[in-house]
């Protein structure tokens, strides 16, 4: 069977499964549509949160970023710690209390706790901007994955993906999304770990990639990371495990990712679906178990893929110094079946090589390093000849580099699609709920009936999918800035407001609104100064590099400072104005203890 048929079969089977779940898990009430009837088992919710959280970026790009970053693999640990450490904050500071509050959306909590429609609307705007930025990346990811594995146009792929999400998200709301995400998690984690296990076995003899990363490279008898450090420095790249040169920025970036994770509404609402407060705490733990399964494999995939790539281009490097032997020859790439993956990926344009000096060999090294460049010129090399290696190849080409069977390649394709679709659905639900529950029921028509609100929720979801599909086809300039924008907003506006709402009785409506606005505006202005105003190219005031950043703080890391601004302004404004009214103080007392949280039947009456 050829690769195309296999891809079609595996992807088709997973899609049939998602549609089957959509028909089985239709939503009959707003409680089912917004919160899956609060009847989701904490372990299943953990699994769904894992799929919700791990996007196309985590699945396809993260290991490649760790592998190929010019600052070295160590500095990218910020992603690993940041995107997992946020779950500790969720479990300790937010999830149990927001579950006890027992309503449906994040802006609804902010509106009730700060007894202010303006606070609720500021939260709605933050939610929509953060989630929409995020969803565009997922939609384009769906299109690209389809185009590569099913040989359709990227726009056709996008329409197919949007139709599938439409089926289960509009019919089933949170209920349909939750159970589809459970299935999608199983697909994506299998697809991610199988190639990683084979590569780890191959390079280190360790079955577990987590052990292989800190194990011994069998071919050379040297520790894997020591071998990698030796090779990449010989080629003129920065040491893989080398210490960061900008510690303050790495700390702030990690913190921004952590508090941004804890403040992203599509993650928080997942904890509204479990039956009890105690379940919300445990469920955050289960979510991290399922996320850690991928996040502890990713650094191993990164290091091993980088080693494989280097020894492919420098065959002598397996056992000794790279430059002591010849580079891979052009003829070998053309004829050796083991190297056929290079040609496959060169066709997609994600990888390219060029024999610049015409010696019949492809020399790969860092021509930006003056010492290595001088030595290379002495040998008659006229520049680095591996001219392009896209980060995404590190995961996508793994099965081919490891010479795994065709069904593993098909599974990786299905896994990438599962990661993108599950995150897209979760984000779209957060946006649709904010529109139907916070804007329509909360502000425009509070007397809307249960049936009317359910219909409004379905229409909002359908509209959100149409808008996301359009933006996926015509991505605006800010789509590439997901990390800066979504995490910056969540970190600087939503997380501090939620935390102060739970842990302080003194923060009042004025404090919350001014705090959120100043955190948000401070963060956005700092991002715009370096990335362009509203991301229009050429409108940035200062070049986006470390020499121009204030104290070396990158626009990606500024969310942490924005959060501090939010806390400080909220505190100062609240102290200068009146205390929150008695009923709000009682609301805070009541969310702090688990007793008395409504169970599913009671909330269905909401």
């Amino acid at each position: 069977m050829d690769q195309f048929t296999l891809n079609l079969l595996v992807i088709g089977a997973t899609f049939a499964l998602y549609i089957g779940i959509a028909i089985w898990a239709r939503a009959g009430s707003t409680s089912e549509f917004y919160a899956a009837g609060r009847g989701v088992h904490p372990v299943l919710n953990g699994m769904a949160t894992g799929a919700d959280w791990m996007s196309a970026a985590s699945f396809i790009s993260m290991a490649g970023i760790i592998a190929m970053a010019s600052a070295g693999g160590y500095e990218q640990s910020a992603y690993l710690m940041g995107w997992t450490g946020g779950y500790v904050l969720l479990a300790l500071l937010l999830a149990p209390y927001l579950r006890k509050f027992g309503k449906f959306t994040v802006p609804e909590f902010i509106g009730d706790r700060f007894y202010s429609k303006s606070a609720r609307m500021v939260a709605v705007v933050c939610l929509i901007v953060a989630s929409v930025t995020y969803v565009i990346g997922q939609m384009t990811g769906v299109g690209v994955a389809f185009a590569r594995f099913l040989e359709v146009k990227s726009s056709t792929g996008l329409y197919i993906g949007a139709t599938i999400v439409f089926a289960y998200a509009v019919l089933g709301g949170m209920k349909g999304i939750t159970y589809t995400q459970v299935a999608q998690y199983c697909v994506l984690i299998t697809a991610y770990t199988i190639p990683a296990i084979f590569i780890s076995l191959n390079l280190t003899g360790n079955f577990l990639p987590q052990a292989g990363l800190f194990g011994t490279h069998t071919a050379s008898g040297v520790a894997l990371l020591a071998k990698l450090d030796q090779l990449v420095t010989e080629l003129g790249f920065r040491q893989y495990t080398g210490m960061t040169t900008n510690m303050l920025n790495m700390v702030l970036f990690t913190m921004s990712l952590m508090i941004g994770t804890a403040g992203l509404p599509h993650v928080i609402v997942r904890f509204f679906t479990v039956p009890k407060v105690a379940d919300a705490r445990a469920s955050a733990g289960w979510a991290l178990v399922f996320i850690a399964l991928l996040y502890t494999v990713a650094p191993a995939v990164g290091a091993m893929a980088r080693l494989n790539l280097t020894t492919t281009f420098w065959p002598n490097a397996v056992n000794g110094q790279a430059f002591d032997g010849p580079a891979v020859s052009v003829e070998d790439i053309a004829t050796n079946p083991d190297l056929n993956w290079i040609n496959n990926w060169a066709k997609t344009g994600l990888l390219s090589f060029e024999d610049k000096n015409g010696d019949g060999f492809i020399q790969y090294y860092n021509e930006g390093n003056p010492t290595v460049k001088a030595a290379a010129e002495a040998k008659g090399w006229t520049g680095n000849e591996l001219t392009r290696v896209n980060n995404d190849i590190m995961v996508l080409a793994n099965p081919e580099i490891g010479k795994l069977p065709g069904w593993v390649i098909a599974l990786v394709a299905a896994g990438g699609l599962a990661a993108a679709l599950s995150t897209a659905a979760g984000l779209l639900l957060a946006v649709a709920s904010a529109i139907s529950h916070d804007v329509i029921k909360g502000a425009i028509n509070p007397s809307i009936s249960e049936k009317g609100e359910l219909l409004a929720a379905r229409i909002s979801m359908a509209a959100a999918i149409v808008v996301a599909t359009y933006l996926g086809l015509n991505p605006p300039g800010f789509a590439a800035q997901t990390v800066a924008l979504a995490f910056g907003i969540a970190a600087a506006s939503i997380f501090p407001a939620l935390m102060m709402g739970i842990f302080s009785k003194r923060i009042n409506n004025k404090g919350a609104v001014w705090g959120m606005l100043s955190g948000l505006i401070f963060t956005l202005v700092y991002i715009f100064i370096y990335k362009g105003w509203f991301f229009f190219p050429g409108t940035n005031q200062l070049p986006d590099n470390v020499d121009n950043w204030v104290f070396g703080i990158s626009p990606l890391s500024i969310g942490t400072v924005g959060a501090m601004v939010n806390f400080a302004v909220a505190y100062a404004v609240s102290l200068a104005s009146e205390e929150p009214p008695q009923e709000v103080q009682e609301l805070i007392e009541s969310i702090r203890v688990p007793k008395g949280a409504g169970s599913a039947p009671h909330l269905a009456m909401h």
Partner: protein
Amino acid sequence: MADKSSSNAYWKANIRMIQLFLVIWFVVSFGFGIILRPMLSGIAVGGTDLGFWFAQQGSILVFLVLIFVYAWRMNRLDKEHGVEE
């Protein structure tokens, strides 16, 4: 709001626990993983040093333990103060 004094004691105990757990959360990630890495560079772990291990694996494992221990301790605290569901 049946028993305010009990729920105050409950809340204080909860806050103490949160503070302790957040200190551990901070030390294993920002501490051992980043700020203190140069001081720990003498401790070798699998071809690199302890700080690198904490940054790429150890901190995540500690995060997992923290959440489950917190959930377990809170369930006990809920029962002691009679505020469980």
